C-alpha cells in the first residue's frame, strides 16, 4: 500500500464516494420526508380543556423549573364575568423567551395540569428578538371542533374537579351562545 503514490490514494476516496447514496436532506423542499420523532422537544403549546377553557392556572411552576429562566407567568383571579380556566386562578401573562429556552422540557414535566406540552415544531428562527418572545396568544393551542375560546363560564352544573376528572367532553350550547353574545358585544361596542 505504501508504494501506491499519495495522489492516487487521495483521489480514491473521492472516486469511491461518487458511487455512494447521498445523505443530503432537501430541507425545506422535502421537510415532510423526515419528520421529527414524536418525542422531539419543539415549540411549546398551552392546551385547552375540551370546552375551550385554558388549562393553565398560572401557578408558575414551569417558570420555577426552567433552568434557563425563559418563562414568565403572572397569575390572576378568574371572575364571574371573565373566566379563563376552571377554578379560581388563571395565567394572565404567559411568555416564553425562545432566545433563552434550551428545550430541556423540565417545564412540561412539572406542569400540574398538563397545560404545557411541547409540539414537534422546530422552525423558530426569526429576525428580531421581540418576535422570539412568545406571548400567551402565540402559545395557546388551536381551537379544536367543539371548543369555544375563553373567556366563558364553566359547563353548567360542573366544578373544577369535573374538568380534572375528564368529565367535560365539549362546549355546551349555552357556552357557545355566551361566547357568541360576548363577540357581539365587542363587535358593535355596545352593552
Amino acid at each position: 500500500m505504501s508504494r501506491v503514490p499519495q495522489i492516487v490514494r487521495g483521489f480514491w476516496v473521492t472516486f469511491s464516494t461518487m458511487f455512494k447514496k447521498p445523505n443530503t436532506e432537501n430541507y425545506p423542499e422535502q421537510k415532510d420526508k423526515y419528520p421529527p420523532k414524536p418525542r422531539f422537544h419543539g415549540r411549546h403549546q398551552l392546551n385547552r380543556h375540551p370546552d375551550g377553557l385554558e388549562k393553565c392556572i398560572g401557578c408558575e411552576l414551569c417558570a420555577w423549573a426552567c433552568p434557563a429562566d425563559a418563562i414568565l407567568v403572572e397569575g390572576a383571579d378568574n371572575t364571574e364575568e371573565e373566566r379563563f380556566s376552571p377554578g379560581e386562578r388563571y395565567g394572565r401573562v404567559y411568555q416564553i423567551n425562545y432566545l433563552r429556552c434550551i428545550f430541556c422540557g423540565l417545564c412540561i414535566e412539572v406542569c400540574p395540569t398538563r397545560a404545557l406540552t411541547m409540539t414537534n415544531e422546530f422552525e423558530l428562527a426569526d429576525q428580531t428578538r421581540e418576535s422570539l418572545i412568545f406571548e400567551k396568544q402565540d402559545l395557546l393551542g388551536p381551537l379544536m371542533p367543539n371548543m369555544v375560546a375563553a373567556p366563558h363560564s364553566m359547563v353548567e352544573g360542573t366544578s373544577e374537579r369535573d374538568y380534572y376528572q375528564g368529565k367535560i367532553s365539549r362546549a355546551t350550547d349555552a357556552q357557545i351562545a355566551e361566547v357568541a353574545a360576548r363577540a357581539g358585544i365587542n363587535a358593535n361596542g355596545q352593552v
Partner: protein
Amino acid sequence: MTIDNTPVELVTLTIDDIEVQVPKGTLIIRAAEQLGVQVPRFCDHPLLDPVAACRACLVEIEGQAKPQPSCAMTVAEGMKVRTQVSSVMADEAQKGVMEFLLINHPLDCPVCDKGGECPLQNQAMTNGRGESRFDGEKREFEKPINVSDRERCVSCARCTRFADQVAGDPMIALLERGSQQQVGISDDQPFDSYFSGNTIQICPVGALTSAKYRFRSRPFDLVSVPTTCEHCASGCSLRTDIRRGNVMRRLAWDDPQVNEEWNCDKGRFAFPYVQEGRLNQPLVRGEDGLLHPASWTEAIDVAAKGLAAASGATAVLAGGRHTVEDAYAISKFARAVLGTDDVDFRSRPHSTEETQFLSSVVAGSGLGVTYADLEKAAHVVLVAFEPEDESPMIQLRLRKAVRRGRTKVTAITSHVTSGNKKLNATVIATAAGHEVSALSELALDANTIILVGERAASVTGLLTAATKKAKESGAKLAWVPRRAGDRGAVDAGLLPGLLPNGNSLTDSSAREKAADIWNVENNTLPFAAGRDFGAIVHAAVNGELKALLITSVDVEDTQHSASTLQAIENTPFVVSLEIRPSSITELANVVLPVAVVTEKSGTFIDWEGRPRNFGQAIREHNKLTDGRVLAMIADAMDVLLGQQDVAQLRAELAQFAAPTNRVDAPSHGADVPNGLTLSTWNQLIDDGALQEGEPFLAATSRNVIAGLNSKTAAAHSIAEGDLIEISTSLGSITVEAIFVDGAENTVWLPTNSGESKVRTNLGAAHGNIVTIKRGGGQ
C-alpha cells in the same frame, strides 16, 4: 443595643447526646435550635404563648413513655432529649403527625399563594412520609371570607393567639372541633383590627392570604429589600418585595428592638401610591397660564430664575414625610441658597411653644426613650396621644408590657378608646384643651415615661407642663410625632430659628460653623429666626411673599386648607416638588417630580431617635430625590452645593456638633378654652394621601362618627345615633353621634376620615372651641 446584665440561671441538658447549657425556662425547641437541630413546628412562635396545638414538634424525652411537644415544654436539669435526629420514636411520631395533618389538607399548592414559601410544604418534605395511606374524601368548606381558605388550616392557632395576645382584637377565632375545626369570625363582633395583616404573615400555611397579593407572584420572582416604613414614626423595619420594578407586597421584618416581628396594616398594604398616578415629568406654567411638560433643564432654569428674582421674600414649606437627608437638604437650601429662615415642616397645627419645645428638648437629642424602656417601665402616661392610631408599634409594645403585669398605663385623653381598653389603661377623661391641669395633678416618679403626641402642640401650655413635670419627677419624656419624617426634620433643622442637630440659628458661633460646612459666606445666612408654617401662610395670604418652595405638603393637613390654598395662590412664584399631582400642582409655577421612599435610599428617625437606614428598593423608576433636585436648582442659581446624594448629605449632617447653647425650654402658661371643645386626631387608616388606591385597606378603616359624652349630648338634646352638626365660623361637619365614655363638654371627630375633614371643613385643631347641634336632616 441595651445589654441586660442580670445574671441568668443556666440549666444543663443533653439533646441528641450533646450537652447544652441554656437559661432556665427555655423551651426545648429553642434549645435544640441552638444546636442547629430544626424540630418541625407550626403553632410554635417565639412571640406567642405556647399552646402545643399542632403536635408537629414531638420529641422523645428519656423517662417519658410518650413523645412530648418540644414547643411547650421547658428544659429541666439533666433532661435527656432525643429529636428526630437520634430517635426513631420521635421521627416516627413526627411523620405520623404530618400524615394526619395532610389527611385533610387539600394540597392545592399550584393555586395556593403560600406555595414556595410554605412551612407545610417544606416540613412535609423534610419530616413527612412520602406517601399517604388516606384514600377517603377530604373535607371541603364553603368560602365566606374571601381571603381565607379554611381547608388549608392546620389549626395551629397562631392567628387567633396573635389577635388575642398581641393585638387584643377579637377578629378571628377557632370554631367547631375535630376535623370540622376552622378559623372564623364571629357574627356579632366586627372584624376590626389595624393589625390583621400580621396573621397572614404568621399563618404557616396558605389558609390566610392577602387579597392584594393573591396570585400575583411567587417567592422566586421577588427581589426582597429591607426598608423602613414611611407611614408613621414607629419606624418599622419592613421587607419590600419587588417584582419587575413594582411593589408586590410588604412584610414585617424582624427587628427585636423596634417592631419585633409585627407591623400594622397601613405599613403593609398602603403602597399603591408608589405606582399609580405618579408625576413623571417636570411641568412649567407657560405664558398661557397652563402647565406644560418641560425638560428638566428648562424647568430647573425657570425655578432658579424665579427663586433668585424673589430673593428676600421667599419661604419654604416642607411637610413631614422626608428622610432626614432630604430634610437636611431642604434646611440647607433655605438658609444657604434662599437666605431665608422662613422654613417649617409642620403642615399640621402647631405653635411657637412647640417650636421652642422641639428646638430645646427634641432636636439633636439622639436615642431617648426606647421600646425596651416602655416594656420595662412601671408606669406609662399617654398625654394627647393615641398609640393605636398614631404609632401602632407603641400600642403593641405597651400591650405586651401590660400583659406581663408590670406596667400600668394612664391616658389623658377625651374619652376611653378601644386602644386604651386593650392597654387596660386608666383613662383620665379630660376635655380637649384642659390637659394641662390633668397632667399637673398626676403623681409621677422616676420609673415613669411620659409620651406626648403631636396634638399637644394645639393645647397651650401642655408641652411646657410636660417638660416641667418630667424634670420635677425624674420621669422620662418622649415626643411621639405621627409622620415618619417629623423627628428627622427636627434634627435637620427644618424649623424657624433651628440649625441642624439642635443648634440655634441665633447663636453666632453655630451659625458660623454652619456657613463653614455649607461653604457659603456667613453673612448670606439669615440672622434672625424666621416664621413658622402658620405665619408663612399668613404672610403669603397678605401677599407679603414673592416665592414659595413647597415639598410634600398636603393642603388637607394644614390648619385651614382654604387659607393655605389662598396663600399659595397669592404668592407670585411657587415651586412644588411632588410625587403625585395635588391641589398645589394646580397653583404652582414649576412642578418637579421627586422620588418616593421606595425609590430612594435614606434614613428615617423614629420616635425613639433611632436612625432607621434603608436602601433603594425600586431602581427602575429613575426618580430624583429632593436633595438632588435642590442641588440642581442651587447650581442654576450659582451656588454650588455638590451632588447632594444621600451619602454626601449624611456625611455633612454628621459634621454638625451637638449645640453648646441650646434654645430655652418653653415656658407658656395654660390657656384653658372656655366652652365646648373639639378633640381630634388622625385615625391610622383614613383618607391620607399615601393610602390612596387600596380598597381592601380602606375597608378596614373605622366608622366615621362624632363621639361625645351622654350628658353633653343631653344638654344639646342629642340622642345616640342622631346626626349632629359640628361647626366653627369657617364651616361645619355633619356626622352620626355615638356616646362615648369620656369627659363632658368635648366632642371627638376623626381628623381626616370620610365626611369628617376637620382641617378642610372646620379649620380647627384639637382643643379649639366648636359648637354642636342636632340636625343636618335624617
